[in-house]
């Protein structure tokens, strides 16, 4: 069976030895110890497993690891620079946009994709873009506020 030997994750190359049919999510979590991406539904309907694949938000639970070869994978662990949080992470803290936090990684990764290149979405666009992400604790209104706040921080295309 085909195996994946190397992945590009958060700016570094990682040696792996994984059946190409395994989900990207399981390889990130179990082989690389990057447990920030979560399993929520296994069918791409909750967004808890969202990572960026060449900058595009991707459901890692329904993505074969084989499909991630030679692509840049970015996970929640790759956002902060040392102690300096990403503006979206900061905004989530400032807006108190979480309860249990299990959806938070996926929410933040989706939001990072939305705000790419200094894009400033209005509320409607945020709701439309984020609608595939579930927060069962129901902090949606706060997450929308956090994304607006982050957009303000990222004006001019920073990060």
């Amino acid at each position, binding site marked *: 069976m085909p195996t994946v030997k190397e992945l590009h994750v958060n700016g570094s190359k990682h040696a792996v030895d994984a059946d190409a049919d395994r989900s990207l999510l399981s390889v990130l979590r179990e082989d690389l110890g990057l447990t*920030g991406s979560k399993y*929520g539904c296994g069918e791409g309907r909750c967004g808890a497993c969202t990572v960026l694949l060449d900058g595009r938000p991707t459901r890692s639970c329904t993505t074969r690891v084989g499909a991630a070869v030679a692509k840049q994978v970015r996970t*929640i662990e790759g956002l902060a620079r040392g102690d300096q949080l990403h503006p979206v992470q900061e905004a989530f803290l400032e807006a108190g946009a979480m309860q*249990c936090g*299990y959806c938070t990684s996926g929410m933040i990764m989706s939001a990072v994709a939305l705000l790419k290149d200094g894009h400033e979405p209005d509320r409607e666009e945020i709701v*439309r873009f984020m609608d595939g992400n579930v927060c069962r604790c129901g902090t*949606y209104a706060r997450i929308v506020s956090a994304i607006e706040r982050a957009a303000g921080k990222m004006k001019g295309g920073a990060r």
Partner: protein
Amino acid sequence: MSEQSIGEFACEPERYELYEGSSSWELNRREFFRIVGGGVIVALLLREPLDAQPARPRGRRGFGAPMPREIGAWLHIGEDGTTTVYTGKVEIGQNIRTSLTQVVAEELRMPVARIHLVMADTARTPFDMGTFGSGTTPRMAPQLRRVAAAAREALLDLAAKRGNVERSSLTVADGKVVGPRSKPSFDFGQLTKGKKLMKLIGEDTPTTPAGKWTVAGTSVPKVDGRVLVTGAHQYASDVRRPGMLHGKVLRPSGFKAKLVSVNTRDAEAMPGVNVVHDGDFVGVAASTELAADKALAAIRAQWRTVAQPSDKDLFQYLKSHPGTARGFGGRGGNDQGSMDEGLTAADRKLQATYTVAYIAHVPLEPRAAVAEWSGDKLTVWTGTQRPFGIRGDLAGALKLRTEDVRVIAPDMGSGYGGKHTGEAALEAARLAKGAGKPVKLVWTREEEFTWGYFRPAGVIDVTAGVKKDGTLTAWEFHNYNSGGSALRTPYQVPNQHHEFHPAESPLRQGSYRALAATANHFARESHMDDLAHAVRMDPLAFRLKNLKDARLRAVLEAAAKQFGWGKAKPAAGHGFGIAGGTEKGSYVASCAEVAADRKSGLVKVVRLVTAFECGAVLNPDHLKNQIEGAAMMGLGGALFEEIKFAGGKILNPRLSNYRVPRFRDTPVLETVLVNRKDLPSAGAGETPIVAVAPAVGNAIFAATGERRRSLPMAPNGLKSS
């Protein structure tokens, strides 16, 4: 009491309220200091007076007998001055890690950042019955206040002695004990260094009144927020152990199915696969999830199923199949006056039947556990609201001594009342035993939807009488199966009868945020709305006319004021609704604005105002967060959440066919906190949900003239299915 083994699938409604505690945590000074090192320890000896306990159905074992003295919570100030607090409570997302830290900071007069909470670890924290029933704030927070206050007093004693000064000249502030003009000034660590001082206190230790709070009562940010936004927090499903395998369990073909035959030969032949077969339990453990999936798929099993009711027959079934379970709040027994007289005195009589469907909790982190054996000792990391209960369940099922089982519940990916049981813990433990290695088992979403338990479905019959002037004369209320929480009307009615009728539930059922208070408030407040319209009264005025309870009146008035009730007329196709109620010592009222288009069938809640009162508020922002979250969760159950089942199978066990509230469903949410610093703090995780469904239903009625008496009210929009 019937603490059932977790392998069984029967589960009485609201069973969690019924557990009695028994601690094996023994007082041993040397042991304490061996675990944590030197410093100052303060422990609270608990002897909960009966009147502080939630009412329980009569006849429970242990009820009425004094509990042994035991430790409720304890705190340690180390030799470096850092403070560690030990509590058996679990952080589920309700933000108690923060609010409990705040109350300790308040009494110890030290910064929040220097206090660390150890929670929900049966080897390190005192026994706790579980984190449910909105009990942490009213019961655990006062205990922690007391140990912190006593620790502060102990530090004052130490400082007076050390500085050889009058104790009364010293104050504690910002983590220091200081005298006039900061002379002397001691860091906590200077006072605790080299000490091994242990203080045992009772529940009468004085604490700071809410009016004088400076840290408690403020919006301290989530103390662990950073590890959540960086993905660093380790939920139970994130725990990894050396050599760990991944487990999968063979599930029956349907509920109540019996295993007739199983062939595991092909799975066993797969390299690196461990098959565990013990009675009806069949599972596998392998090095990756995919390998475990493939091994499971290679197992051939035959099951024998039995005929079972489906959702189509559900409500008829519940009424015709009486059961034996008891719900919290009892069966009734609170008759007053005579229904005959009350109905005779009425000008208008209304009778109606309400139904509520089974719904699922859908915690985003499904049940998960990592089990590791060391000889005959077992450690399990699992997301559960009852770590000590699960420890007992594991010991019982695996024939271990309780003290040889350690259950750790890391801050979890939510529960909403749905994680009182420890299925995954036991399954992982069995697999780990069989495989001889640590095993992680994470339930799939489909397993979580199928093999967990549901909020009880129910049927509620209401008969009421009212005079032309709006005075209630009669109120009769029968709840079948859904439960007894908030069964009684808070309104003044001279003739009333309430009764809870347990039934045989076709599906496994258990607790859910606010238990049956949601169903009972839905029926009651919908019916109250009908009565108001029957006598042509404003629904708010009608409620107030029949209501004496000042706290409930206050939230109804506060919600109405914020909403602008009675001021503006709704836009075309829109309707306004109001509802209120009380449960678990707190009070809530909600006002909803709904947009309803009868032609297209579209219905949307566009604005939801909630006023909430739970005594003295511990953390206003986190309280608002809970209220907003309850509003969103309440909208799901109100409008579209519903478990479909037939032939022993769940028909919609995935997020693609069980609809939960999403971003697009979010209305404008406004919350009004009625802060009563003169009253003890009550919990807030549950009650804010109870008025959502009736407020929305009343608004749909106002918009369309159509009364919807079944939850969910609009699974297919306003069109009938």
